[in-house]
């Protein structure tokens, strides 16, 4: 159990060695301050000394490979809509089944197994409080398990992106 790596969605690690210099710069240098101009990819291309089409094609490739999930906005939690972290202590022989049930909800955007008695952790997001509560109540009653409801109280993290180290 302790060192299992068994992803249930596409799982191919991209070795740093496989990445071109352009790919590395696109991954590292543009996690924030994406241009709010009519042609943002052309602006990036100018900084990088390549063509707009190269930027677009390379981002497309990184997206298809799974290295990036999207190019776009990261919303501050609970400023647009509401969300909460939730946890369940699921008997091991039911974990797969309960995880799939939780995954069915469009409101759930992250769902992980973690090493703890509380072994299923997911994030649910909805337009408003009533909808969010209804989703969690529904999960609770369908699974017959208590859902630990852990909404955010305060965010202390200043998100400047994540510095990837290639060495």
């Amino acid at each position, binding site marked *: 159990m302790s060192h299992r790596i*068994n*992803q*249930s*969605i596409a799982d191919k*690690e991209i070795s740093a060695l496989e990445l071109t210099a352009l790919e590395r710069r696109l991954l590292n240098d*543009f*996690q*924030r*301050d*994406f241009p*709010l101009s009519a*042609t*943002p*990819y052309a602006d990036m291309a100018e900084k990088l000394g390549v063509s707009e089409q190269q930027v*677009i094609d390379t*981002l497309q490739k990184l997206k298809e*490979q799974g*290295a*990036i*999930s999207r*190019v*776009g*906005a*990261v*919303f501050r939690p*609970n*400023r*647009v*809509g*509401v969300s909460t*972290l939730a946890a369940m202590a699921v008997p091991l022989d039911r974990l797969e089944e309960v*995880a799939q049930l939780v995954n069915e909800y469009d409101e759930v*955007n992250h769902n*992980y*197994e*973690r*090493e703890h008695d*509380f072994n299923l*952790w*997911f994030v649910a*997001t*909805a337009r*408003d409080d009533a909808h*969010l*509560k209804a989703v969690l*109540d529904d999960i*609770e009653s369908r699974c017959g398990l*208590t859902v*630990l*409801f852990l*909404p*955010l109280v*305060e*965010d*202390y*993290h*200043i998100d*400047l*992106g994540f510095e*990837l180290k290639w060495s």
Partner: protein
Amino acid sequence: MNVPKIPEGLIQMPGLDERDKKLVAAIQSGLPLCSHPYAEIGQQIDMAEAEVIQRLQRLLDNDFIKRMGVVVRHHELGYQSNAMVVWDVPDAQVKALGHCMGQFEFITLCYQRPRRLPEWRYNLFCMIHGRDRDDVLRCVELVVERCSLQSVAHEVLFSQRRFKQRGARY
């Protein structure tokens, strides 16, 4: 259900009008990869390119949007190990310790959350991404040392299977 009420202040969306909401809905799965992405988003929701850009700028200025840019997937880029580290911090020190933790570059989230006694005693949560388990544990040690957390109870919840990961939809 275990205490479901979210504080009222977090539910409201001050300053967000119907057109903002339409725009947020249109960009939540990402910007299109084309020459004029804001114009293309605008076409989907009947909004001029200039208005799309102006509204996004305001959402950034108002901190509705934390950042705009490339959103990387750590796991695929070789950060194979991630752990949620949870701490039982005295209430009076949550703010100071949260700020202390929030500054480490390997910490990608740092939130205060409510305790749920008796099942759950921890009130400060942070996410650490590392190359492997030892890498993550070294990061935890560094946080303990730098923020003087030697006497604070904590647990390291390594992730196992990832059943779902995508951007939020509202």
